[in-house]
């Protein structure tokens, strides 16, 4: 199989960001409005420069979790090419969650940046 080594790194890359996948999905839905699973996956790939191009299946457990917590809603509709698809949208609670998580993330990352920007002796 071509590019075996690439597949390995990419898979690991996806899992590492597994925890923040929820956050990314919320952001995507907040920014771009209701989308189906395929659309969300494509968008995440684009934004991340194809790092997240494999194992799109891991999206679905994330969508399940987010639905469970009431941060996204889902409804069946028709896609652009007239196929039946499930569309997800962010809820009010989801938006609140997103805001809070964004603040946390920024706080954490600024601290990390500060630590990492210290000169190495």
């Amino acid at each position, binding site marked *: 199989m071509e590019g075996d080594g690439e597949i390995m790194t990419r898979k690991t890359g996806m899992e590492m960001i597994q925890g923040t996948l929820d956050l990314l999905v919320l952001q995507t839905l907040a920014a771009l409005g209701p989308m189906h699973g395929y659309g969300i996956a494509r968008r995440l790939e684009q934004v991340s420069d194809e790092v997240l191009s494999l194992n799109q299946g891991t999206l679905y457990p994330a969508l399940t979790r987010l639905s469970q*917590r009431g941060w996204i809603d889902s409804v069946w509709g028709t896609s652009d090419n007239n196929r*039946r698809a*499930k569309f997800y949208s962010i809820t009010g609670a989801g938006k609140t969650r997103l805001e809070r998580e964004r603040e946390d993330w920024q706080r954490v990352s600024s601290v990390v940046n500060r630590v990492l920007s210290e000169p190495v002796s």
Partner: protein
Amino acid sequence: MIRLRAIWWRVVAVVRYRSLETELDEELRFHFDQLVDEYARAGHEPAEARRRARLRLGGEEQVKESVRDDRGLPWLESVFRDVRLGARRLLRQPSFTSVVVVTLGLVLGASVLVFSLLRGVVLRPLPYPEPDRLVRVFETHPTVAEFPVSPLNLVDYRNEVTGFEMLAGYTRQDLELSGDGEPQTLAALRVTPDYFEVLGGTPVIGRVFEDADTVDAAKVLLISDRLWRTRFATDPDIVGRQVQVNGAAWTILGVLPAGFQHVGGNYRSTGHGETVDAWWPVELSAEKVRRNWHYMNVVGRLADRIEAHVGEQELIALAAELEARYPETNSGWRVRVESLHDRIIGGRGELMALLTAAVAFLVMIGCVNVAHLLFARSLARRRELALASALGAGRGRLQQQMLVESLLLSAAACVLGLFLGWLGVGLLLRLMPSDFPRLHAIHVDGLVVLFTVALSVAAGLLFGVAQCWRLQPPTLAESLSEGGRTIGGSLWTGRRGVLVALEVALATALLVGGGLLLRSFQLIQVTDWGFEPSSVLTFEVNLPQQRYAEESDVVGFYGRLGETLGALPGIESVGGASYLPWTGWDENSGFDIIDDPIERESSPSARFGAVHPGYFESLGIELVAGRFPALTDDADAPLVLTVNQRLVEEFMPHRSPREVIGQRVSLWGDEVEIVGVVGDVVDQPGDLVPRSALFWHFGQKSFRRQSMVLRVEPGLNPTSLSVAVRRAVAELDPQLPVSAVQSFDDIAAANLAERRFLLSLVSLFALLAVFLAAVGVYGVLAYSVHLRRRDLGIRMALGAAASQVCRLVLGQGLAWALVGLVAGLGLAAVLSGLLKSLIFGIAVLNLPTYAAAALLILGVCTVASGVPAIRASVTDPLETLRED
């Protein structure tokens, strides 16, 4: 909050499983199709596009799995799945499943039975407020361990005692109700007014007695709820209603509620329960009653925080005071106090313990059988488990499967057991003697159901865990190759043999117990009781004071009655007496032997009664010396007496019965001559020693209440004459109630009922146990043969004769059985103490019974071992060697 919502979502997802699966399927298919389109647009061939799309999306089943993990309650769903699969698997093996379920169901049913018994009789508090403060009080004397209380003594105790809140008295004295409707005898108690307060009985309407009501002239009564409903059609104006009682107008003061239970008693009382129709007041004045008459039953309520033995001490001290005050009547009399609970239930302790032990044995045997079956089956599934394990099933998952299966089996057994138990309790209640304590409280109630469910869950878990624990998931290679498997056999034979021996031991012990009870029961029935109870009809009549005021009236009536009854077709002979054998009558009187050569501390005392001519003959009681009562013994003739043989032995020990004829005694102030000695009759079947008795002749001393005895022609059913008898009485006096019409066989049966009930239950358990043990022996041996078939096949191929193989297998089976048998006999001997009070006439270590049980067990085990042995010997060795 979010967590709660998440959990709720998951629960809902479990319920909506199927629709969510369909949605997921459709969603993933959409995603996949989109990806395929994408790759197709990029120029790939359809097959290639699909491959890449599959890679990008991930394996469909894997995606679904990870969604499922997050979506529902995966553990619960796996349990449901196991339940479904397990049920299907069990149903595909109907013989295995049915054997397990039936075995467990039978033993669970037995435990439902016994537990219902325990629950109703022992484990339920008595239906009175603060029942542990209730006690029964008796008086004692050096010559008698337990005696009713003298009413005048009772009055003094009540007035002076402090350790008791109340001391109430009761004594049975039935009332004859007439007027509108059939004359009816009411089971009635005469009680002191505080009787109701002691027992917490508040009338539904009306009031209880006050002190003003306790004069004989008051003519008031309280009735039971049952009587109110059946006789008075729940008349709302029942309070103050006048009724004809004992020929006079009495007033009903009130009605006691349904569920109000009498405390019972052996003497002058009805049994424990709702056994009383009416209550009326008792008068305890010194004019009407003498201090040395003991006929009151006493139930008392201890004062707060006073212990029974403290109360007893106080009463004993009071009794001593009374002794000093009234030396002629009270010398030597003391008091004994016993808790009401012990009184009502006591004596059944051994019976309960025996039944509990029996059912425990049965349950153990059943469980051993089932455990072995399950284990054998799980071994057979090793291959399947190895494959599952290789395909990724975790150990925990496999164990969960086995546990679920065990629980399914035990759940099915629980349902069956509850059903069988419920049937059994119904049957039991019909078998049990009607005076068994708290009979009415025995039924399958919530607690029994809970207990059974808990027991079956425990059994299921135990079996499941045992299976898991013993079964290490074998390596794939090991179990996929079946060669060289002799090892599997011998590894387990030792332990299985122990289990089989255990089963046999328990079954043996049960069988011995059942055998002892059976033998004892047979002995009772063939023992010479001193009279012939079959073909005898009896009934009771009580002449009211008002219409039969003079003794001559009473004598006249019974004389005419005897003639009328004697003339009825089918009657061989007629007699009557003031009491019948085996009915619990126990009134005693002192008497003095004139010119008595023996120095005595106290007067001899014996049971007294009055008999009509024809009584002894009708019952078939033997005449030992002298003559039977005759019609010539009337008021004008000299006073005469008949005594029984026991009286002669006890009080005139050096004289033969013939020598006693003509002896004069002083009884009730009269000088009487003994003219007859009759054979003894014991109080209760199963008693070893009869009591001394003396009998007035009816023409000379009459009692108003008489039990008439009619011997019918052989072959005739005594009760077929009941109607004729009632008519004969009605002709002489239409207002006279006739009660207790029954054949003596019925009285005998009622007395033996408790023994028969115990015998039936224990025999049933014993037979079941033996059957299950035999099945166990057969099963284990057959399985062991199956495991060793290659070994045996080789032997036979190398020249061993079929009979040798047969003997080998048989020997193994019998070896286990013998070990179990010996252990079982030992166990029975050790536990025989439980049976001591329940057995009559034989020692608990009765050799013939033990030997018989041993033979039976040996025979059964030989057959059970023989079958697999014979089958092993006839299998073609080539066949077994060929299979792999």
